[in-house]
């Protein structure tokens, strides 16, 4: 009787109240669930978006129907607009013929103003002198 008691281990694993077989199964299940979550996350956040962008042309992603109104021939409209504006700045013409008010090219206006001299404060300064506190 005493000999049999001596052969028994002092502390058996099942003495901790834990079933290591079940623990192994639960751990395996947890690892599988984690792997599935990581797999779906990688698929949803990385692989799937990349594959979608590659397959769809960019123009299909722009909701043109809800964009602010723009002329279909924007470039042409802009050229026409700019042409009119540049014409105003490069030609001679009347603004109010009865009053004798005219428009002249901006280059001529610049020349006249430079000849007259722009009004400058007291002592004439250069750009380098100003704003260097």
């Amino acid at each position, binding site marked *: 009787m005493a000999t049999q008691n001596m052969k028994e281990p002092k502390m058996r694993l099942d003495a901790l*109240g834990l079933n290591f077989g079940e623990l192994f199964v639960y751990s395996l299940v947890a690892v599988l669930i984690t792997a599935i979550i990581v797999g779906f996350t990688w698929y949803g956040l990385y692989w799937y978006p990349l594959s979608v962008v590659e397959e769809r042309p960019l123009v299909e992603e722009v909701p043109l129907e809800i964009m602010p109104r723009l002329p279909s021939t924007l470039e042409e409209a802009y050229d026409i*607009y700019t042409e009119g504006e*540049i014409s105003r700045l490069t030609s001679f013409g009347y603004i109010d013929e009865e009053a*004798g*008010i005219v428009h*002249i090219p901006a280059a001529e*206006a610049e020349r*006249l103003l430079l000849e007259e001299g*722009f*009004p400058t404060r007291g002592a004439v300064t250069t750009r380098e002198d100003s704003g260097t506190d």
Partner: protein
Amino acid sequence: MNLRKPITLLVMVAAAAFIAACGNLQEQPKLHKPFDASPNFDTAARVPLPEAVAVGTLNEDEHFYTGMVDGEFVETFPFEITAEVIAEGRAEFNSYCTPCHGNAGYGNGILSQEGFPPPASFHDEEIREKPIGHYFDVITNGQNAMYSYNSRVTAEERWAVVAYIRVLQRSQNVEMSELPDDLQAQFD
């Protein structure tokens, strides 16, 4: 020996201690805004000393940086306007101003034609009579739908833009009798 109860008890005590430790962070005194009253100083953020100026931002030249002197808009430029300055002003104007003001300054830029609130024309009599400092102030601080260009365009460039606006105004509104003969001849 059954260790299940001691281990369970130990885990519960550790969890309770961990949760209790987190609560203290929420209860400690906290100042939410920089100028909240502080028991250590007047405010949570230290108030700068009187007349303290950040490095590089003294901007002592009121005329140059505000377009005003003693609260009044200036009638003069702070530095000499040359052809180079006007060329720079034209470049800045065409980049930043034409979308709304238009190339000639009539307030009919391409954005205005697409529904954005149109600005006033530089050639209206009321606008033409504004002092030079007014234009600089509007570019610096914005007005109505126009936002500030203070951080986008330097003070030198803003003055250059004002000079170019004066060129546009002269270009689009000048009395025939003021023109030299060679220009008057263009209208014959």
